[in-house]
């Protein structure tokens, strides 16, 4: 399964997300929560249109790294660039200056984020969840946004559940709505924070199928997950994180089948 080649071909055929995929660069990321060093100098390069899967034991800093990319988490040191533009800061006389909230929110509008616990808005229907952000950020009018939302829900296989409230949906359906909600922003990159960890095993497949569809559509994806099989099949690059550092990275065939680092080997032997 050569994911990169398949991805590039399909990108022309499907090309459905709309926005151009963008690259993501993380440089020297450091983050400390109290006494705990969560990120201890992470450098990550994700080329546009590629799928990167981040693996690692819990507490290794995977989620923090992902959240730092859309500035939900502020880094102590280091910085993030999405599509060549620094996130959360701007260059000012050779230094980085923090952006105001409005500018950060505008940047986040170009980065999709899918949460482990879905975090759908419970008081809005599936359709309203998907249509909210494009309207609120002034990108589309209400009618257009609802139209687009219907298309997106159809794309994740939930055309008939548009009027349902999140609590009336199964976990897998909720996560698919959440993915459609992220797609509504036409993001250049989508970040997935353990998208299947809160799901029953039988529901994991339907969510992974949607993500796989996005991968072949040519969107830049960064996925934190424990689904090794999914990583092997879809990822262009697998990154193994431990103790706030990248221990090993490379194509899945290498990292998953012939890991060089003993920590990677130990982790894989436990999860496989």
């Amino acid at each position, binding site marked *: 399964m050569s994911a990169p080649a398949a991805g590039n071909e399909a990108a022309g055929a499907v090309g459905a997300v709309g926005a151009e995929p963008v690259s993501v660069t993380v440089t020297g990321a450091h983050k400390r929560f109290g006494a705990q060093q969560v990120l201890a100098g992470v450098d990550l390069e994700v080329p546009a249109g590629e799928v990167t899967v981040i693996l690692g034991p819990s507490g290794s800093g995977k989620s923090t790294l992902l959240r730092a990319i859309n500035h939900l988490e502020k880094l102590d040191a280091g910085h993030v660039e999405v599509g060549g533009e620094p996130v959360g800061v701007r260059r000012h006389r050779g230094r980085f200056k923090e952006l105001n909230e409005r500018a950060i929110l505008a940047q986040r509008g170009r980065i999709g984020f899918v949460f482990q616990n879905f975090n759908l808005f419970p008081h809005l229907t599936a359709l309203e969840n998907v249509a*909210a952000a494009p309207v609120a950020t002034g990108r589309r009018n209400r009618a257009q946004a609802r139209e687009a939302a219907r298309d997106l829900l159809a794309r994740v296989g939930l055309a008939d559940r548009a009027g349902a409230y999140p609590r009336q949906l199964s976990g897998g359906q909720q996560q698919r709505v959440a993915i459609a909600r992220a797609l509504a922003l036409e993001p250049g990159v989508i970040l997935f924070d353990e998208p299947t960890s809160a799901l029953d095993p039988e529901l994991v497949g339907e969510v992974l199928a949607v993500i796989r569809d996005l991968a072949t559509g040519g969107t830049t994806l960064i996925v934190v997950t424990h689904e090794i099989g999914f990583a092997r099949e879809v990822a262009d690059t697998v990154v193994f994180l431990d103790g706030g550092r990248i221990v090993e990275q490379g194509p899945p065939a290498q990292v998953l089948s012939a890991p060089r680092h003993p920590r990677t080997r130990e982790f894989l032997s436990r999860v496989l």
Partner: protein
Amino acid sequence: MSDLSRAAVPPERLAPADPAPPDPLPGPAVDTPAGPAHDERVIPLRHPWRWVLTALVLVLVAQLAHGLVTNPFFQWGRFRYWFLRPIILHGLGVTLQVTALSAVFGLVGGIVLALARMSRSPVLRVVSWTYVWLLRSVPLIVLLLFLANFSALYRTVSLGVPFGPHFVEFDEARAASSLVVAVVGISLNEAAYAAEVVRGGLLSVDQGQHEAAAALGLPRRYQFTRIIFPQALRAIVPAYVNQLIGLVKSTSLVFYVSLLDVFGRVETLGSTYPSDIVPLLLVATVWYVVLTSVVSVAQFYVERYFSRGALRTVPPTPWQRLRTAVADLRARARLATGAAR
């Protein structure tokens, strides 16, 4: 009815409607190995003491009601005389006016205070906390009397830089009618309590909702007004209505700043007609009960509205419940007559 279709109907539906004893051999479709005397239904547990207790309570309630109606002490004739007198209704109007204005100003003030308390600015947080601490400490009656005498302390109230220029200036003596004093006093007091109610509601919204709203890049105002606050309202409404019902009755204190609400009218009429004081108090009581009931009914519908999405199915209104009960009875009756024929 063929035997086959009869077997499909649950036995408890059919049995009471069936006047004739069941067929000893119901046919090939039904297989009952234990013979004709056997009944699959479970006999429910009997609760004899529950009936005894129910009877006892009913007797007590009947006694109370009887006493309320027949005791000459209550003078129901005088009650009827006073209940809809224009002077009482005028007082009721004042009560409604003070309640409505204070409820709105109190809630708005409470939202502002709650936001200040939860803001990132330590100054706003401390100011908000101090306000709530102070206003919850001062009895409402003291605050009202203090405000009523305010115009004696300060001739003018002005907004501006201390020792510097003043932007807005009020002539206190002219502005402070007793209605203004009452509404300002009750609103100030109400805001302190409402602030905590609102803050509690906002805290009850899951952190993930804030994160999701931020991750989608929703503008801050939209995040608050469309995502966080509607969810907080689910927790705010019951607590604030509780507050509101307290407010309806605390408006009776405005009597002490010479504003004649329904209680004030009753009080002054009572001193003019001392023999009518009991029926007059009953008039006030019944009006307060009516107001509280209206608020409670409104609460049901407001809560129902904000439970959208929080419950898988929205609970039926009492009206809907009544209609389904009637429809159910009708269906049963139809089934019974159909089976008898």
